C-alpha cells in the first residue's frame, strides 16, 4: 500500500495533535469507558479499509487498542477477526475521546523555530529488513513482493523494552516456539497464547494500570486486501510502536520472503520503510524561562516528558536500526557515542525506571507548591525560597561528588583545556601598565573574543546547536532493491536535511542554531595565576569605546531577553520610574564595569587596578558601606572624577538587592541602585561564592544587568556539579543556565551515574570556560608559570608534660561522654555538644589557655570536661590551671619577686658563659633555660618532665645533676638571655638599646607557652638569623590563639601585624599595606584562617606557619596559596605543627581520606549527614581503631 497516495494532508492534520502523546492516567480511564461502549465483544474487530489514510489508520489503531484492552480484561474473546471486518467505528468519536483530555506538550529543551514547509508531508528516513510472524493460516495472504500495511492495536501490557538491535531469532524463537506449540488450537486459542505470553512478563491487571500507561509492542500487518497476515517481531515492533502511536513515523513495506502457504508462527521476511511524518516536526510549544519556583515541580517526570523520553529512545533505536547517521553532530554527542552511551534507550530507560523515584522523593510536596507559584507568575514568594533551601539540604548528599569523581573533574577541565596553549596572544593596550605573561595574553585573546561573541576562536566551526544532529532524508528506492547505504560525505540537498535532538527527542526541519547570547564566561585559572590581572587587562582592552564597534543590543534582543526572563522585565519597568532626569541620557548605553568580590579583596582590586592602569585611564570606585553613591550619577561623571570600575562586595550586593527588591515597584523609587544600571561588564571574583543557587547573594548576582558577564574562580566546581549551574545561570548561557535543563542533562544523569553527565559538563565548559593550571605547559613545552619551589614540612611536636595532662584529661572526659551518649543512642541529639567537646580538644592542642579561658563561660560542656569525677583529679587539674593562669598573670610583677642577691650571684656566673650550655637531660643546647635552686640548669621541658615523672613515681624530684632537692615547679627560675641580634651581612648588632648591659634576666618560669607556640618562636628566631627582614604568615583558626601568639611575640620583641574577621575593610587594607612595607626587621602577620584564607595576595612573605589543622585540606591549601602564587620569587616554606598523639593526628587522617565529614557538619555547622559524621567522630576519638602511639605522629 502506498500511504502517500492515499492520505490527504488534511486528514493527517486533523488527527495529529491529539495523538501526539499518550494520554495521562485519568484520561486513559475515560477512553476505556468510551471504547468499552463502542467496542463490545462482538464488534471488536475493527479493520480500516485497505485504502486507509494516515489519519484513519491511526484512529483504527486507537480503536483496536481499546478493544484489545477490553479483551484483556475479559479474557479470551477473539478481537481480531480480520475476516469479517465490517464494523466501522465513527472516527470522530474516537478522536474526540482521545483529543479531549490530552495536554499541551512541554518541551525539555529549546526547539528551533519549527517552520515546516507547507508541501512537506513526510520524509523518507530509510528502510530495514525485519522478521514477522504469521498469524494466519493458508495460502494467498501474501507472496514475496506484495505490499503490506502496518497497524497498531493498543493494549495495556507491561513490555520490557526491546534491546535495540538484537539479532533476530534469539529470544524471538522461544516466543515463536510457544506460538507454534499452541498451533493446533483454534484461532481463539491463539489469542490466549498471546495473552499468556504477555502476562508472563506482567499480567495485565486492569486495576493496576494506575501508574504509567504501558504500551504493548504489537504491530500487525495486513495485506493490501485488508486481511491480517501477521505481526512484526517484538524486537522490531518495540521501538516502532510508540512512534506509530504518536504519529511520528509512517511505515510501509513489502514482503521479501514468505512460505507459500502460511501457518501460524511461520516467518515472513519483510522490508519496512520508515517515513518521518509531518507531525514529527510540528512545533512543540516552548515555555519561556521558567520561574525558579517551579524547579521542583519539574523534577517529577510529567506524562509529557515521559512521552518525549520514549519518543527520544524509540527514535534513537530506530535510527540505529536503519543505520541513519548524522551528517553533522557535535563533539559532545560523538564522544558519547564512543563511550557506548549511544544506546540511549537502554541507559536512559534505566535511569527513569530504577532510581529517580526514591531520590526525588523530597520533591512532590514542593511540586504542588511550585505549581501554585507558577500561577501567580513572577512572584517568588519567600516561603517558596525557604522550601527550596530545605529541599536542597535533603536532596544534596547524593549529588555530591565523591573522591573519584572529584578526580574526574580534572579530566573534565582537561577537555576544556585542549588546544588552549595554541591560543593567539593579544597584547593589552598601552594604558595597561603591567606586562602580561604569555598565557595571560592568551586569556586576553579568549576573553575579548568571548565578549565580542566570537566563538570561532575556540574552533567551533559548526554553529549547530550543541544538542542537535543533522540528518538527511534518503532518496527513496524502488521496492525490492537492496538497501543502499548513503555515503555521509555526499552532498546533501538542503531540502532533504532534517535535525534531531537526541536528548529531547525533538525533530526539526530547520537548522537549529546555537543561540548562546552570553558574552563572557568563566575564567577558572588555578589560584595565583593572576586572574585579577587578566581581567584588568580585559577592562583596558575592551573599554566603553568599543561599544560603538559592537552594536548595542537591539531592541529585539532586549525584548527577547525580557520575555525569556519575566523577572527582568520588571527591572526594565522600574527603570521607567526613574524618569526624574538626574542623569544625562547617554547612560542608556551600558557602560562601566562592576566587580563583585569578597570584602577582603575589595581594596586589593582597587589598588591593583590603580597600579596597573596609566593615570587617568581606568578609575575604580569602592562602592560599599556608607559610600554607596548613586550609581548612575557616579558613572556619569566625566573628566577627573570619571569612574570606570565599581567595586563592591557580595555582602553589599546582597543587601542592596534586598533593598532594591523591596522598593523597586514603589512609585517613589528613585533608582540609583546598582540594579538600575546596565553595566557593560560584570565580574564576579571568587565566583564560587554564588555556588548555592538559592542563596540570596546568588540571586542578587543573577539580577544584575550587564552586557558581559564574567565569573572568576579557581574552583568552579566545589562539591557538586550543580555548583556550576549557578555560574552558568549568572552568565545567562543558554540553554545550560536553565535549571530544568541543567538538571535534566547533568544532575539527573549524574545521580544515575551516567557518564553522560560528565560529558555534558565537559561540553559546556569547553564553550565557556578557560582554565590553566600552574603545572601546564605552553606550546613550547615550558611551564606557563614557574613559581619558586614550595617546601611543606610537617613538624610533629610532643606536648610538654602539663599540657599533656590537661589534654589527656579533657580527652578522657570527652571520650567518656561520647561513649556514654553513643551507648544511650543520644549522640545524634547531642551532636553540637559533641562538636563543642571536639573544639575544646582542638584548642587545647594549640594552647591550654584557650580551653581554660573558656571556664568562665557558662559552658556546660567545658564545665563538665573540667569537673573531674574523682576529687584528686579535680584538684590536680585545678592546680594545673592555677599554675598556668598564675604564670600568665605574674609576668607583670615577676621582677619584684626575684631575690636580688640570688639573681646577682647567678648572673655573674651566667655572664661568663659564652655559648648556650648543653642540657644534661636531653644533650641538646638548652631551650628555655631554667635555673634550679642548686644553680644547675636544664631545659625547661626536661626538668618539668622530670619533676612530673618523679611525682608519678611518688618520689622526691631531685636535681638530676647533684641530687639536691626536692625541686618544685615553683622553684624554677627562667633564664632569659637577650639574644645578640647580629646582622649576618655587616656584622652589626641589631639590638637597639645597647646601653642595657643586663643581658640576662631571671624570672619566674613561664609555663604558659604552649609547645606549638614555643616551636614557632624558636623557628622565628632561627629565621631571623638567616634573613633579618623575613616576612612570615602565621595562620590559626582560633583568633584567641592569635591573641596569645601576639602576647608572646611582643614579649620576644618580634614585630607582628594582625588580620582577622573582626577588622573593618579599611583596617584590613591598612594591615596588608603595612605588611608590604620594607622594614629592617622580621615581620609576622597573624591571620585567622577563615578571614584571610582566600584571595589575599601576600607574596611579600615566603614563610607560612599553619598552627593547627583544619578539617578541609583545600582551605589550608588556599591559605598557602596566598604566598605561593604569581609574584612570589623566593622559595616558599610551609611549616605545619602537629602535636603527637592528639586529635590533630586523626584530623589529618580524615583530611587525607577526605571523608564526608569534611563537607558536612563540622565545616559548615549544619549537619546534613549525621550518620557518616558520627562515624568520623568515633574515628577522632580513636574508638574505631586501636590508636597506637607508635605511629609517625
Amino acid at each position, binding site marked *: 500500500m502506498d500511504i502517500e497516495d492515499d492520505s490527504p494532508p488534511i486528514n493527517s492534520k486533523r488527527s495529529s495533535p491529539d495523538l501526539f502523546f499518550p494520554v495521562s492516567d485519568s484520561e486513559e480511564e475515560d477512553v476505556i469507558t468510551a471504547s468499552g461502549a463502542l467496542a463490545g465483544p462482538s464488534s471488536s474487530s475493527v479493520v480500516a479499509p485497505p485504502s486507509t489514510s494516515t489519519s484513519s489508520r491511526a484512529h483504527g489503531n486507537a480503536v483496536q487498542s481499546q478493544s484489545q484492552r477490553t479483551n484483556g480484561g475479559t479474557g479470551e474473546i477473539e478481537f481480531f477477526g480480520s475476516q469479517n471486518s465490517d464494523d466501522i467505528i465513527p472516527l470522530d468519536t474516537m478522536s474526540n475521546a482521545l483529543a479531549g483530555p490530552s495536554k499541551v506538550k512541554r518541551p525539555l529543551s529549546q526547539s528551533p523555530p519549527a517552520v515546516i514547509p507547507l508541501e512537506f508531508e513526510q520524509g523518507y528516513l530509510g528502510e530495514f529488513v525485519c522478521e514477522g510472524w504469521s498469524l494466519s493460516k493458508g495460502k494467498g495472504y501474501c507472496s514475496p513482493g506484495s505490499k503490506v500495511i502496518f497497524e497498531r492495536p493498543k493494549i495495556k501490557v507491561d513490555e520490557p523494552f526491546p534491546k535495540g538491535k538484537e539479532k533476530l531469532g534469539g529470544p524471538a524463537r522461544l516466543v515463536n516456539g510457544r506460538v507454534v506449540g499452541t498451533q493446533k488450537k483454534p484461532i481463539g486459542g491463539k489469542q490466549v497464547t498471546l495473552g499468556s505470553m504477555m502476562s508472563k512478563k506482567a499480567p495485565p491487571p486492569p486495576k493496576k494500570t494506575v501508574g504509567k500507561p504501558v504500551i504493548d509492542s504489537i504491530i500487525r500487518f495486513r495485506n493490501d486486501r485488508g486481511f491480517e497476515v501477521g505481526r512484526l517481531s517484538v524486537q522490531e515492533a518495540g521501538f516502532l510502536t510508540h512512534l506509530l502511536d504518536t504519529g511520528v513515523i509512517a511505515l510501509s513495506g513489502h514482503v521479501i520472503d514468505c512460505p507459500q502457504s502460511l501457518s501460524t508462527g511461520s516467518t515472513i521476511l519483510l522490508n519496512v520503510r520508515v517515513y518521518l511524518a509531518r507531525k514529527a516536526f510540528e512545533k512543540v510549544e516552548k515555555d519561556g524561562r521558567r520561574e525558579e519556583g517551579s524547579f521542583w515541580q519539574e523534577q517529577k517526570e510529567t506524562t509529557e516528558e515521559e512521552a518525549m523520553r520514549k519518543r527520544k529512545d524509540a527514535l534513537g533505536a530506530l535510527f540505529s536500526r536503519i543505520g541513519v547517521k548524522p551528517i553533522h553532530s557535535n563533539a559532545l554527542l560523538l564522544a558519547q557515542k564512543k563511550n557506548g552511551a549511544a544506546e540511549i534507550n537502554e541507559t536512559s530507560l534505566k535511569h527513569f525506571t530504577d532510581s529517580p523515584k526514591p531520590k526525588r522523593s523530597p520533591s512532590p510536596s514542593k511540586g504542588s507548591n511550585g505549581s501554585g507559584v507558577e500561577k501567580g507568575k513572577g512572584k517568588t514568594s519567600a516561603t517558596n525560597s525557604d522550601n527550596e533551601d530545605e529541599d536542597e539540604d535533603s536532596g544534596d548528599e547524593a549529588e555530591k561528588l565523591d573522591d573519584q569523581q572529584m578526580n574526574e573533574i580534572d579530566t573534565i577541565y582537561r577537555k576544556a583545556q585542549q588546544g588552549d596553549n595554541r591560543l593567539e596572544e593579544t597584547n593589552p593596550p598601552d594604558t595597561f601598565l603591567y606586562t602580561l605573561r604569555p598565557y595571560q595574553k592568551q586569556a586576553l585573546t579568549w576573553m575579548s573574543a568571548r565578549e565580542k561573541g566570537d566563538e570561532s576562536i575556540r574552533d567551533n566551526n559548526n554553529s549547530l546547536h550543541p544538542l542537535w544532529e543533522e540528518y538527511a532524508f534518503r532518496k527513496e528506492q524502488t521496492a525490492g532493491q537492496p538497501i543502499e547505504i548513503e555515503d555521509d560525505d555526499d552532498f546533501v540537498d538542503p531540502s532533504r536535511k532534517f535535525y534531531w535532538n537526541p536528548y529531547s527527542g525533538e525533530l526539526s526541519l530547520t537548522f537549529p542554531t546555537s543561540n548562546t547570547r552570553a558574552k563572557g564566561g568563566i575564567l577558572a585559572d588555578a589560584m595565583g595565576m593572576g586572574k585579577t590581572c587578566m581581567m584588568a587587562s580585559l577592562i583596558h582592552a575592551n573599554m566603553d569605546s568599543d561599544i560603538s564597534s559592537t552594536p548595542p543590543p537591539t531592541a529585539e534582543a532586549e525584548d527577547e531577553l525580557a520575555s525569556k526572563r519575566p523577572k527582568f522585565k520588571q527591572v526594565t519597568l522600574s527603570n521607567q520610574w526613574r524618569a526624574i532626569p538626574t542623569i544625562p541620557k547617554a547612560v542608556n548605553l551600558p557602560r562601566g564595569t562592576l566587580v563583585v568580590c569578597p570584602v577582603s579583596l575589595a581594596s586589593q582590586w582597587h589598588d591593583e587596578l590603580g597600579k596597573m592602569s596609566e593615570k587617568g585611564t581606568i578609575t575604580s570606585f569602592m562602592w560599599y558601606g556608607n559610600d554607596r553613591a548613586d550609581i548612575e550619577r557616579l558613572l556619569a561623571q566625566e573628566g577627573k572624577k570619571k569612574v570606570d570600575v565599581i567595586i563592591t562586595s557580595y555582602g553589599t550586593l546582597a543587601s542592596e538587592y534586598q533593598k532594591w527588591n523591596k522598593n523597586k515597584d514603589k512609585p517613589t523609587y528613585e533608582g540609583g541602585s546598582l540594579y538600575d544600571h546596565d553595566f557593560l561588564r560584570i565580574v564576579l571574583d571568587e565566583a564560587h561564592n554564588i555556588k548555592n543557587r538559592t542563596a540570596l547573594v546568588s540571586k542578587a548576582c543573577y539580577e544584575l544587568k550587564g552586557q558581559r558577564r564574567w565569573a572568576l574562580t579557581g574552583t568552579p566546581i566545589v562539591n557538586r556539579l550543580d555548583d556550576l549551574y549557578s555560574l552558568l545561570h549568572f552568565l545567562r548561557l543558554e540553554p545550560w543556565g536553565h535549571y530544568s535543563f541543567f538538571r535534566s542533562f547533568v544532575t539527573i544523569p549524574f545521580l544515575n551515574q551516567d557518564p553522560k553527565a560528565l560529558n555534558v559538563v565537559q561540553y559546556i565548559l569547553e564553550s565557556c570556560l578557560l582554565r590553566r593550571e600552574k603545572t601546564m605547559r605552553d606550546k613550547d613545552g615550558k611551564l606557563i608559570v614557574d613559581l619558586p619551589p614550595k617546601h611543606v614540612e610537617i613538624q610533629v611536636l610532643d606536648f610538654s608534660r602539663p599540657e599533656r595532662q590537661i589534654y589527656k584529661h579533657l580527652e578522657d572526659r570527652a571520650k567518656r561522654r561520647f561513649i556514654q551518649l553513643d551507648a544511650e543512642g543520644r549522640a545524634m541529639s547531642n551532636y553540637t555538644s559533641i562538636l563543642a567537646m571536639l573544639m575544646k580538644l582542638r584548642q587545647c592542642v594549640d594552647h591550654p589557655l584557650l580551653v581554660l579561658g573558656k571556664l568562665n563561660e557558662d559552658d556546660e560542656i567545658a564545665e563538665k570536661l573540667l569537673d573531674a569525677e574523682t576529687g584528686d583529679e579535680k584538684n590536680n587539674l585545678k592546680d594545673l590551671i592555677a599554675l598556668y593562669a598564675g604564670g600568665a598573670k605574674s609576668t607583670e610583677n615577676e621582677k619584684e619577686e626575684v631575690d636580688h642577691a640570688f639573681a646577682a650571684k647567678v648572673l655573674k656566673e651566667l655572664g661568663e658563659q659564652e655559648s648556650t650550655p648543653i642540657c*644534661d637531660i636531653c*644533650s*641538646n643546647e638548652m631551650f628555655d633555660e631554667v635555673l634550679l635552686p642548686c644553680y644547675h640548669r636544664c631545659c625547661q621541658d*626536661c626538668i618539668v618532665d622530670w619533676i612530673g*615523672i618523679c611525682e608519678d613515681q611518688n618520689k622526691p624530684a631531685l636535681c638530676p645533676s647533684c641530687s639536691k632537692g626536692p625541686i618544685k615547679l615553683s622553684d624554677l627560675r627562667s633564664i632569659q638571655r637577650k639574644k645578640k641580634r647580629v646582622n649576618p651581612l655587616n656584622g652589626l648588632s641589631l639590638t637597639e638599646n645597647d646601653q642595657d648591659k643586663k643581658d640576662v634576666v631571671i624570672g619566674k618560669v613561664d609555663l604558659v607557652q604552649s609547645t606549638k607556640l614555643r616551636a614557632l618562636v624558636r623557628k622565628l628566631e632561627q629565621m631571623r638569623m638567616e634573613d633579618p627582614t623575613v616576612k612570615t604568615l602565621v595562620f590559626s583558626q582560633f583568633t584567641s590563639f592569635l591573641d596569645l601568639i601576639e602576647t608572646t611575640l611582643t614579649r620576644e620583641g618580634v614585630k607582628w601585624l594582625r588580620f582577622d574577621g573582626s577588622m573593618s575593610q579599611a583596617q584590613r587594607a591598612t594591615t596588608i599595606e603595612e605588611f608590604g612595607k620594607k622594614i629592617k626587621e622580621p615581620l609576622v602577620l597573624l591571620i585567622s584562617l577563615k578571614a584571610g584564607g582566600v584571595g589575599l595576595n601576600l607574596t611579600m612573605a615566603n614563610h607560612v606557619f599553619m598552627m593547627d589543622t583544619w578539617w578541609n585540606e583545600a582551605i589550608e591549601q588556599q591559605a598557602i596559596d596566598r604566598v605561593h602564587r604569581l609574584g612570589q620569587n623566593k622559595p616558599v616554606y610551609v611549616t605545619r605543627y602537629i602535636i603527637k598523639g592528639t586529635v590533630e593526628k586523626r584530623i589529618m587522617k580524615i583530611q587525607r581520606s577526605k571523608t564526608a565529614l569534611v563537607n558536612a557538619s563540622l565545616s559548615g555547622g549544619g549537619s546534613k549527614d549525621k550518620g557518616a559524621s558520627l562515624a568520623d567522630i568515633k574515628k577522632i576519638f580513636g574508638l574505631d581503631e586501636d590508636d597506637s602511639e607508635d605511629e609517625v605522629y
Partner: protein
Amino acid sequence: MSALPKRILKETERLMADSPPGISAAPKDDNLRHFDVTVTGPESSPYEGGIFKLELFLPEEYPMNPPKVRFLTKIYHPNIDKLGRICLDILKDKWSPALQIRTVLLSIQALLGAPNPDDPLANDVAQHWKENQSAAIEQAREWTRQFAQ
C-alpha cells in the same frame, strides 16, 4: 618505633669512639636502643681477669627512666642474682636523667669491685659473703674462671 632522640645518638657515638677503660658497648643492628656490653672485672677483685657480658636496653622514656641492664655471664656476687639482675640504686630509685649509659656501666664495674652484702639481691650469696667472706671470694674467683674467661 619513633626516631632515636638526639641524646641517645650522642651517647652512642661517644661510647663507640671513646669507651671507658674495661668497658665496651655497641648497639645491636636491629635495635639501636639495645646494647651489647662487656665489662672487665676490676683489678684486685675476685672478678679480675673476667670478661662479663651484659645487655642494656634503653626504654622509650629514657632518660627520664633508667636503662635496663642485666648480666648475661654467670657471676657470683651478692648484688647480682642468678638471672643476672643487678641491685644498684641508680638503676632504681636513685636514677637521674643526668646519668648516662657510660656512668651506669662504670657504676656496675665499681659494684664488682665493691660488693655490698648488706643490700643483697642473691640472698644465699650474700649470706655466704657475710659468714665466710674469703670462701665466698674464692667461689667468685672460681666462677669467674669458669664462666668469664
